[in-house]
């Protein structure tokens, strides 16, 4: 057991658990680093997926693990959706794998521009399609 990683996991769970503000944790690519301690302290897991096979597979695996860890709300967020075909492929995949897709964020050139400018998307263009879709997602999570 790597004690350095073990320590990080223990601490993350305790810090999240004792925080009074709403908390968002950007974790490693998969769920390998999400300990049971951390999982016990989050109420929602969002698995971000793009409309291509490997990304959808990864999200499916994350979704399964999150359910095994007992996280109450496990949702998927589709990102960089380019077309109605993309959306359809995602929905078909999700329905076969018991994945609940609650948001679809369009592919948006503004995001790349903001990244190259080193500026937050929200400050670069708050009315861009992707930022608006993320705002809708926030409203959805806030309501539920």
């Amino acid at each position: 057991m790597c004690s350095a990683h073990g320590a990080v996991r223990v601490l993350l769970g305790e810090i999240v658990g004792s925080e009074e503000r709403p908390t968002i944790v950007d974790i490693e690519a998969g769920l390998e680093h999400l300990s049971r301690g951390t999982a016990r302290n989050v109420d929602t897991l969002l698995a971000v997926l793009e409309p291509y096979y490997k990304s959808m597979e990864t999200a499916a695996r994350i979704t399964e693990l999150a359910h095994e860890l007992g996280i109450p709300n496990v949702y998927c967020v589709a990102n960089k959706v380019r077309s109605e075909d993309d959306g359809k492929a995602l929905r078909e995949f999700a329905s076969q794998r018991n994945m609940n897709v609650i948001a679809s964020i369009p592919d948006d050139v503004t995001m790349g521009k903001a990244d190259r400018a080193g500026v937050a998307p929200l400050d670069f263009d708050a009315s861009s399609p992707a930022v608006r879709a993320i705002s809708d997602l926030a409203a959805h999570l806030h309501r539920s």
Partner: protein
Amino acid sequence: MKIAIAGKGGSGKTTIAGTLARVLARSTGHGVLAIDADSNPNLGVTLGLTRDEVSRLRPLDRSIVERIPDGEGKTKAVLARPAAEIVREYSTMTRDDVALLLMGRVEHAGAG
């Protein structure tokens, strides 16, 4: 509301995490804590910090870890101080009342 965001590298999860944190902070008015636990920490930029500011962030370090006997002849890691105190000390205020905490790597804390 405690949300973890995962996804394949390059999926845009960090952009979503950062933007979500700020939008939630604006709508709730209570502030939000954003934790960057990725090994390639980049959440700060989507929260509105410059790359220069991100490079100067102070990640959590080994001083927050204490190892105590677990009662079975081994040790376990616990927080050396109250969590709230650690968050106050290590987090950086960004835009929209979002505080950013960088997990970093607690390298070799109590290793061996």
